[in-house]
C-alpha cells in the first residue's frame, strides 16, 4: 500500500508541476531548423554560418517552413462534438492540397483530437471523424487517399491543459503533419 500512497503523492507532485508548465504540443510549427543541424555537438563554424544565414534570410528552400506561407498553418479547429470543417479553414486546406499536387512524393498524416468532455474511448472515434473530415476536404481537391493517413489520439494529447472552454476549443483539432516531420 505504501507503494501506492507514494505513487499517488508522486503523481500529485508531478501533475502539480505539469499544470504550471505550458504543454508544448505545437511540435509541427516548431520545426524550422532541420533536426539534423542539432545532432552533432562539434558543429563546424561553416555549418553554423549557413544555419545563421538560413535563420536570417528567406526560407526560400521549403515553403512548408515559411512562416508567411499558408502552409505553416497546420491546425484546424472544430466546434464541440462536431466534425464539420469550418469555412475559415478552406484556404489552409487548399494550400496543402496545392502543395501536395505539386509535390507528388509527399504524404500527410491527419491527426485528430478531442476535448476531454466525452467518453475517453469514444473520443478516439470523434478524433477520427475529424481527421476523416479533413481527409475528405483534401481528397476533393485531388489528393489521393493513398497519400493521406488519418489517425486519432482521442483526448490524450491536449494542446491546452485547462478544463474550460478556452482550453477545450484548442483541443478539438486536426493537426496536419508531413511525412518525415
Amino acid at each position, binding site marked *: *500500500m505504501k*507503494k*501506492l*500512497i507514494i*505513487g*499517488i*503523492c*508522486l*503523481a*500529485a*507532485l*508531478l*501533475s502539480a*508541476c*505539469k499544470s504550471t508548465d505550458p504543454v508544448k504540443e505545437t511540435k509541427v510549427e516548431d520545426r524550422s531548423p532541420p533536426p539534423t543541424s542539432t545532432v552533432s555537438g562539434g558543429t563546424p563554424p561553416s555549418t553554423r554560418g549557413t544555419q545563421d544565414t538560413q535563420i536570417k534570410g528567406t526560407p526560400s528552400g521549403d515553403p512548408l517552413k515559411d512562416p508567411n506561407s499558408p502552409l505553416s498553418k497546420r491546425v484546424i479547429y472544430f466546434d464541440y462534438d462536431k466534425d464539420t470543417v469550418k469555412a475559415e479553414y478552406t484556404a489552409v486546406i487548399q494550400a496543402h492540397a496545392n502543395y501536395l499536387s505539386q509535390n507528388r512524393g509527399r504524404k500527410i498524416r491527419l491527426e485528430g483530437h478531442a476535448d*476531454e*468532455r*466525452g*467518453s*475517453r*474511448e*469514444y473520443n*478516439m*472515434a470523434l478524433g*477520427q*471523424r475529424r481527421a*476523416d473530415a479533413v481527409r475528405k476536404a483534401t481528397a476533393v481537391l485531388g489528393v489521393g487517399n493513398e497519400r493521406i*493517413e*488519418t*489517425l*486519432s*489520439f*482521442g483526448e*490524450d*494529447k491536449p494542446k491546452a*491543459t485547462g*478544463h474550460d472552454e478556452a482550453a477545450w476549443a484548442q483541443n478539438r483539432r486536426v493537426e496536419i503533419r508531413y511525412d518525415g516531420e
Partner: protein
Amino acid sequence: MNPAIRLFSLQRTAVAGLLALLVIFSPLANAQLTIDVTTSAGRQIPIAIISFANEINAPQNITPVIVENLKRTGLFRIVNTGGITTTPTEPSEINFLDWTSRSTEALVIGSINPTPDGRHEIRFRLFDVAKQSQLTAMTYVVSATQMRATAHKISDEIYEKLLNEKGIFSTRIAYVLKRGQRYELQVADADGFNPQTVLSSLEPIRSPKWSPDGSKLAYVSFESQKSTVIVQDLVTGQRSTVSNFKGDNYAPNWSPDGSKLVVALSKDAVSQIYVIPATGGAAVRVTESNSIDTNATFTGDGKDIIFVSDRSGGPQLYSVPATGGTVKRLTFEGSYNVNPRMSPDGKYVAFVSREAGKLRIATLELASGQINVLTDGPLDDSPSFSPNGRTILYESKAGGRGTLGAVSADGRVKQRLSSQAGDVREPAWGPYGTSSAR
C-alpha cells in the same frame, strides 16, 4: 444454520437478490481515500472477528485485512469485541453467550504460528453463533509474503459461506495511472494493495482489458506515435503487437474463449469493427458501414458483438453477429450511449450515457431493453463489472483528474473513492483466479 442467517437467505431469495445488490466494494481503500457512501440501506450480517492467536508476532496482520474487506462490501456489520473477558482463539474457549448477547450471528477465530521451515500456519474457523456450530475451518501454511493473499482467501471463504455467492477479495484490477507526463499500466489486488507497474510509457496507454484466464492484458499503446493494440503476458512480461494496421487500432476486447480480440480499425474506412486472432494476424471485418463503428464487446456466449455506431446520428449501442450480418439497434434513449461492457452472466451491458452534458454509468438489461442510470456524473466513464457481477467499478473524472468510483449493479449503493491526488483511469476488474502468489 443460524435462523437469522437463514431468514436472511430466504429474504434474499424472495426479493430476487435485492439485498445482494447492496454489495459495494472499494478497490483502493486506504487512509488516503475518502469513501463517501451516498446510499446505504439493507440488512447487514453482524459478525465478530477476533484477533488471531499470536497475530501480534506475525509479520503481517490478518484480521484487520478481513475486517476491511468485509466492511467494504456493505453487507456486514463488524461487532465490537471490546469488553469480552475471554477472547477465544480455540473452539473450546468460545462462550457463545458473550456473542448472542451482542446480537452476533457469525464469529471468526484463528491462530498464526511459525512452522519449523520458517513459514506460517494460519488457521481460521467460522461459527454460527445461534446454532453454536462451526460453518467452516481452514488451515494454510504460507510464507510471509503470501499472508495478505491468505487474508483475502479467508475473506472469500467467510463471504461465500454466509452469503452463498463467490467473493471477489482475491481478484485483481488493472488501470492506467498518469503520473505527470508518464503513463503507467498497473495491476493491483482488488483492494488496491500491491500495485505493480507492468508498463510505463511517455505516450498514452489506454483501454486495458483482461484475458478471460487473467494471464494477459490487451491494451492500446501510442508508443509508435499512433494507436496499436498490444497483448502483454503478465507472467513472462512478453509483449506482442497484435494489431498494427494503417490508421487507428483501438478499443480491444477479448472473446469469451480468449482466442480472439474484437477491435476498431480505420484501415479500410472510418472506424469499423474487426475480429483478429489474439496472437495477431488477419483482421476479419464485422461491420460494413459509412459511419463510425467502435467500442465493441463480445456477448457472453461469444456469438454476438455489441458495439457503438453513429449511423443514426449520435452514438448508440447496436448488436451484430460476431461473423457479421444484420445489425440491431439496442439503445433508443438519449443521444450519446457509448463504451458497452458485458456483465459476467451476459444479461446486462454497462455503458456510458451522456445526458445534458453529463457522462453517467448506466446498465441495459438485454432481455427487456430496460435502462437503469446508476451514477450522477458528470464525467463517469469506463465501467467494469466485478467477476461476481455485483459491483461496477468506473472512472470518475473531476478537474481533469481520474479517480475511481464503485456502484452496486442496481445503483442503490454508490461510493466515490476520492484520493487526495492521482489520476487513475480506465479500471478493469480481472476475472476469478488471477490472484498472484506472493
